[in-house]
């Protein structure tokens, strides 16, 4: 009897733990896919990026800051994800909110970022996006619409998450 109770308890605990894990690497689909607000921002090398330049490609747009602990936690996985997605033509942009190159550049020595870091120094671009806390990340479909959102950090190189992004690429790319 005791053995049965212990086994059932372990089984339930295992199921519960598995259930709590399943939600941690997912993206929220956005109903009706509203158009993503356009922007024109400078990157760390002085180049200019317009969201419209990426029309026809899936783009992951991440809003972050160096002092934000969950942003720091997810950046390495974003970098690994970019290495896997870049060859598929999927773009990734990190929009820094309210900081200058002088702050971001030394930060990247500890947290390498191989994809473009864009500077929204006065926060005016972030203001126009549906962002209430950072990090918040959006996946933009090839038609420039917001397809997915993630509030808080994710493990971006998680296979389940990568599959969702790639499926969007395949679905929307002729």
């Amino acid at each position, binding site marked *: 009897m005791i053995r049965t109770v212990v086994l059932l308890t372990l089984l339930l605990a295992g199921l519960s733990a598995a259930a709590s894990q399943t*939600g941690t690497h997912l993206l929220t689909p956005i109903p009706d896919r509203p158009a993503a607000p356009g922007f024109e921002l400078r990157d760390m090398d002085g180049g200019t990026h317009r969201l419209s330049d990426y029309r026809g490609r899936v783009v992951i747009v991440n809003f972050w*800051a160096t002092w934000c602990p969950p942003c720091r936690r997810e950046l390495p996985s974003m970098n690994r994800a970019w290495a896997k997605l870049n060859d598929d033509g999927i773009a990734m942009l990190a929009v820094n909110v309210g900081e200058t190159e002088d702050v971001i550049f030394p930060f990247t020595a500890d947290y390498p970022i191989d994809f473009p870091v864009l500077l929204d120094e006065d926060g005016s671009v972030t203001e126009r996006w549906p962002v*209430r*806390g950072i990090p918040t990340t959006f996946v933009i479909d090839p038609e420039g619409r917001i397809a997915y959102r993630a509030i*808080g950090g994710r493990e971006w190189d998680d296979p389940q998450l990568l599959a969702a992004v790639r499926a969007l690429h395949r679905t929307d790319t002729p």
Partner: protein
Amino acid sequence: MIERHYPAATRVMRAIVPLRILPICLLFLVPTPPALPEVQRQTDAQTGLLRWTLREGPLRFDLVQRLPDQTRAFFLARGFPKAEADRLAEACVFQAIGRNTGTPGQAPAVHIDLGQWRVRAGGSEAPPLLKEQWLDDWGRSGAVSPPARLAFRWATFPSVQTFEPRGDYNWGMISFGPPPGASFDLEMVWHEGAQRRSAWIEGLQCPPEAAPRLEETRP
């Protein structure tokens, strides 16, 4: 020998379920009343600072004391004048972490509006000091520069947010108002889908002026 006669349904059950685990199986059929919100209080072994954790349905919400010096240093480094950094640091600032831990497809979204929360201290009740109030104040007075206000805006917990059960969470500071070391009760309000939920956490303590000595916090 006495032969027992069981109803057909019972005979079927006896065939399917061995008698000795029947009571356990029945436990899963008994409706249970909704569990009361679970609130845990923990002391950080390194700093002696306190953390309260509410777990209720898909919501997990953590409130962690921030020493006034921590908050002061953060905002001074981002361009706050000392007087305003002091005023903010002494307004009972906690680090908050809100998270939807529910299973996608089963759990509802969790919606939080800090304006619906109540801080009960010294015989009166009021909402927390929302970021919008601070920003309006500094916008009118000009006491804090726009870049510093921008850092404050994004370092503080969203006043309104919806967390989907797909791993959504936010970190950020919340200022509750009472002075350093004061005790207060907090009514937390949230919505799970269309259902309004609430819970009181009693005996929260605003962070003290200085880090507590660890022996003071041990039982």
